[in-house]
Structures are given as structure tokens and as C-alpha cells.
């Protein structure tokens, strides 16, 4: 019997906001902290905590710099993060398919 899809879910990636950060970052070369905050509708402190978790897991890279005098923080997804996101998405899709199949 095949393994249940929930076994493939990663606790670090699975959290809704962290999944959102990875999804947006995977679509671009890099994404700015303020863009993530407004897109995901998070407070700066909350977003910062999620970014720290993802960075410590090696899923994203954080780059701090300046745009003129304004400090800017840029986030980019690593190859490990891209792989983890793909695995998470396929596990989620498998769960939904399983749910639909069992309900029909």
C-alpha cells in the first residue's frame, strides 16, 4: 500500500504563510520584504519570523541592502527551497485527489 500523502508534508514548508512566501519567491529572481508583506497581508514582525524560519532551514536566501537611503530586504528562493516547494505542492494535490476519490 502506498504511503499516505500527509507523510510527505514538511512542517517548515506546510505553514500557510511560509508556503505563500515560497510560492511568491519561486516566481521571481528575488522579492522585496514590503511586497511580501502587502501581498500576504502580514505584519512586519510576523513576516520577519517566518522568513527567519525559512532562512534557517536553507529554503530562502536573504539579502539586505539600500535603495538610495531606504533600507531594503530581498528574499530569493534557493534550489533546496524550490525542491521543497514542488514536493509540498504535489503532496497537497495528492491529498486533494485522495479526498475527492474517497468522497465519490
Amino acid at each position, binding site marked *: 500500500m502506498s504511503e499516505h500523502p500527509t507523510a510527505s508534508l514538511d512542517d517548515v514548508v506546510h505553514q500557510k504563510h511560509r508556503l505563500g512566501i515560497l510560492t511568491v519567491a519561486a*516566481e521571481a529572481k528575488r522579492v522585496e520584504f514590503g511586497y511580501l508583506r502587502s501581498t500576504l497581508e502580514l505584519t512586519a514582525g510576523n513576516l520577519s519570523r517566518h522568513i527567519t524560519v525559512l532562512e534557517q532551514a536553507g529554503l530562502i536566501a536573504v539579502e539586505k541592502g539600500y535603495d538610495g537611503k531606504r533600507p531594503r530586504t530581498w528574499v530569493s528562493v534557493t534550489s533546496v527551497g524550490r525542491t521543497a516547494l514542488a514536493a509540498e505542492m504535489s503532496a497537497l494535490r495528492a491529498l486533494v485527489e485522495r479526498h475527492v476519490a474517497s468522497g465519490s
Partner: protein
Amino acid sequence: MADLLGDLDELRRRARKDRHAYPFPVLYFGVASFLAIPLYQPWGPEALRRVSAPTWNPLTSLGTNDALRYPLALGLYWLTVLVVGALATAWWYRRRGRRVGIETSTGGYLAAVGIGVGAPLVSEGLYWYLPMTPLGHWQPGPATGIGLVVIAAATVLWRRRAPRVVTVAAAVLGTAVLQYAQGWVGQFIVIGLGLVVLAAVERSTRFTTITAAYLVAVCLSAGFTPVQSVPTTLWTMAGVVLLPGFVLVVGGLVGLRRE
């Protein structure tokens, strides 16, 4: 769970939309195409004699030939348009990315234009080498097919993350063969390569449609521009830019309005 997947799809769509910046390069190359028209002045009755005496000139693979009155000026014009356009496009994407907060990678685009601009050197080598081989007797049609197949193979190699040197070599060779066979639209092949890569990176349906329409326009221009007609006039020569230029200008304006 299905709601979560739906939310993530929406996030992905929004991120892609916020990255769109294609109207600038599309409009730039469209306007540049029309500005080239005065340089397509033909030589007139002398043209046929001049065409029969070719000289080493890599710019012949960038949309020029010796039947023109100002081939060097036109070749240099297109070379400048391509190089400045590529750099300006990269700058534009970077500037917009910083302003919006989400940046698009333009490395692949610059590499594609670099390959397209460098390939004429290889293409010119083919021009001198192929006439001494059985391949030299091929008509442009088969050579065009081979060029497209090699470019398609380079795309597959790129997607499969093959060693970069192999991918680049295949891309340069395919582009060079294509420009050897279709030198009269060589500059549009370079623009097309860049737009295909940008459309793939942007993942915009509208941009992909504009790029596809542009490639069809280039094929039609390559096939039906009456370059060999006698007498040659400015419009028989410059007709090659009209359709691709029109598609780019209209596509750029539609993009400006919708994005």
C-alpha cells in the same frame, strides 16, 4: 486544502502579473524597425552585379546585403539597436522590479541576444565554407529547417539542464545556420530569440501570443518580401520590416493599455 491550493494559485498569478514589463522591449524593437526604413535604399540597376561579388561581412546575417546603397550603415544600425535594446531591456526590468518589489531574471534574455548577435560570425564562416561542400548546394528551405531543429534541440538541452557549453554551442550553431539561410531577417531572428526567452520567463499569455504573432510575421516577411524583384525600390527592400514592426508596435500598445 483545495482552498489553500486556490489561494496559492492566486498568489502565483498576482506575482506573475506584477512582474510584467514586456511593453517596453516590444515597442522599442517595433519603433526601431520602422526607423530603419530609410536605410533600405537600393542601388538600382547596379544591384545585381554587386550581389554577385560577395565580400566577407558578418553583418549580412543581420538583415543587410550588397544590393543596398548603405549596407554597412544598415548593418551597424541593427547591431546598435540589438545591443542597446538588450541592455535597455535588462535595465528596464531591473528598475521596474525594484519599484514594484518583485524582480525578473534577465540573464537568460541577455544570453539569448548575445548568442543571436555573436552567431553571425559563425554564420559568415558557414557562408564561406559551405559552398565548397555538398551542403553549399542546399536551398534556404532545408537549411532553415536544420537551423530550427538545432535551436529546438538547444532548448531541450537547456530545459534538461545539460552542460552549459553544449547548450550554448547548439544554440549558436542553430542560430548561425538559420541566419545563414535567412540573413535578410537575421536581425528579427535575434529579436525573436530574446522575446521567446522573455515570454518564457514572464509567463504571460498575452506576451506569449504577441511573440508567436511576431514569429509568424517574420516567417511571412522572409518568405514573401520581393527583395529580388526588378526594379528594386525602397519599398521592395524595406517591405521586410513592415509586418514584424507592425506586430511589435501594435503588441506593445496593447500591452501598455492592458498591463
